[in-house]
């Protein structure tokens, strides 16, 4: 089994954190993992993305040429990754700021007004986790329990207070995914 996902958005939208969290979960579950970030202009502005691969075997290239899954947080990311998607791939989109519709008809699309949803949960910044959890729930590269566990190792010290809202975000993501999958 080898599962890869691309997460892409503006710097500051939590792209890297989501990716790292996924990779950490994979590692903790005994998988081979690679996490490959790519930034825009040195640090500021622009679009950033990361490639995460979780596999049962050693991973040669950490680069995902044609994603089977992508979490898209802004418009430039959609423009970039839509044409690259594998057939039957899954695109999860932050509908809050991606007004455009996906043109491809051979991919699965999940659109979430993630910023609004997150704001309703109490923290707009958790939108990355909502979408990540939805991805995990749909594609199951790792377990949701593992994800939650990893989250706790990430949010320590001053950040501990954020655990609650982030777990809520994960749960919300699961909910959205199940709805998407038609599960109840």
């Amino acid at each position, binding site marked *: 089994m080898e599962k890869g996902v691309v997460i892409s958005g503006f710097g500051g*939208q939590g792209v890297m954190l989501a990716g790292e969290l996924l990779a950490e979960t994979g590692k903790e579950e005994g998988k081979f993992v690679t996490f490959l970030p790519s930034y825009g202009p040195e640090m500021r502005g622009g679009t950033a993305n990361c490639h995460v691969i979780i596999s049962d075997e050693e991973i040669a290239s950490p680069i995902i040429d044609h994603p089977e899954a992508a979490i898209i947080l*802004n*418009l430039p990311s959609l423009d970039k990754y839509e044409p690259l998607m594998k057939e039957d791939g899954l695109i999860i989109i932050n509908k809050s700021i991606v007004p455009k519709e996906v043109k491809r008809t051979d991919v699965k699309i999940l659109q979430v007004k993630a910023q609004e949803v997150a704001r309703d949960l109490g923290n707009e910044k958790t939108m990355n986790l909502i979408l990540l959890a939805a991805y995990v729930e749909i594609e199951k590269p790792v377990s949701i329990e593992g994800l939650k566990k990893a989250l706790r190792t990430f949010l320590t010290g001053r950040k501990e207070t954020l655990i609650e809202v982030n777990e809520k975000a994960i749960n919300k993501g699961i909910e959205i995914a199940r709805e998407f999958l038609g599960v109840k």
Partner: protein
Amino acid sequence: MEPKVIINEQRCKSCGLCISICPKKVLRISDKINSRGYHPAELFDNENCISCGFCYLICPDKAIVEVRRPEPVKQGG
């Protein structure tokens, strides 16, 4: 009345500097989201704005495009 402060919502990055510096507290973060995902500042109380231009001076993103002052209404003739 025409707005005393013209804000380019697309350019605003929601930094809050204008709001913090406004002596009359007539600016605030709006509920809108622009294409970069920011909630732009808005002048919610044009009336009380004194056209001091502080918001213009501190705005780093050329989002405050203009500041205007109503011409004093000339009395008599």
